[in-house]
């Protein structure tokens, strides 16, 4: 039985998880080449891909336009830590070690203070991509957020 993305499901992390399951099928995880941003145009801008190169820190391979606009600089090819904890991308990629260790999707949310000093609520997901059973070569991430309005 195949799963399809429910158009009524608005939560990015669940929709991206459904897409990932659809790509994986009976495999433990999809291949990085299976990910096609044109199939998920409404989500793709909130997504990013981390490339796993050996035991070192993963590097940004693809950064969605929403994240790129917030960063103000192109972090492609740079390590995860370059994003910083005051950005949504940095928060969303911060638990990559847990996903690499467990080989399963993990979704976390929380809040942080951004560069402008505003408190931001966010929810994110990291999904393993790989070749064969268990060998992770990349991570597909997705995250969205909203600023906490002062006085609300």
């Amino acid at each position: 039985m195949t799963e399809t993305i429910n158009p009524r499901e608005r939560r990015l992390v669940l929709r991206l998880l459904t897409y990932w399951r659809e790509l994986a099928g009976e495999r433990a995880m999809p291949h990085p080449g299976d990910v096609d941003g044109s199939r998920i145009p409404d989500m793709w801008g909130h997504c990013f891909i981390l490339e796993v190169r050996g035991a070192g820190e993963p590097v940004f391979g693809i950064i969605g336009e929403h994240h790129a606009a917030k960063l103000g600089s192109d972090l492609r090819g740079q390590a995860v830590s370059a994003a910083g904890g005051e950005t949504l991308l940095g928060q969303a990629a911060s638990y990559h070690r847990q996903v690499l260790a467990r080989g399963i999707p993990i979704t976390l949310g929380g809040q942080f203070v951004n560069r402008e000093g505003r408190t931001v609520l966010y929810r994110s997901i990291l999904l393993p991509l790989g070749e064969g059973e268990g060998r992770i070569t990349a991570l597909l991430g997705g995250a969205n957020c909203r600023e906490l309005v002062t006085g609300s």
Partner: protein
Amino acid sequence: MILFEIHTFRDGKWKIDSVFDDKELAVYEAQRIEKGGRFSAVRVIQETYDEETQRTSIRTVYRTTKVDRINVEGERRRAQPLAVAAPPKPPRPRKHDISPVALLLTLTAIVLGGIGVLYLLQNFSGRF
């Protein structure tokens, strides 16, 4: 720290499917997986890590199986009002029903008839 793991059951073993930090989201996703029909059971395990004691406690916060679903549907059917059910039909008499009295009388008649025939044969056979 509290995390919620979704576990799926297939081919006789449990497998960790995904991890959430939000119970509502985890249970919602577990229900979606269950509806997909690929797994015979789905459960959500809450993992609580105590940083002071460095110990992790776990408990099941959600669990559903196909057996559970069938049982729930059965209970729902049993709970429906009896008036809805058609009245039971009276038992139809069987074609070959014979009362014990009639059977006894028939046997008695056969035995007496046999004795009578033997009596006649013994006493009157020489006269013919």
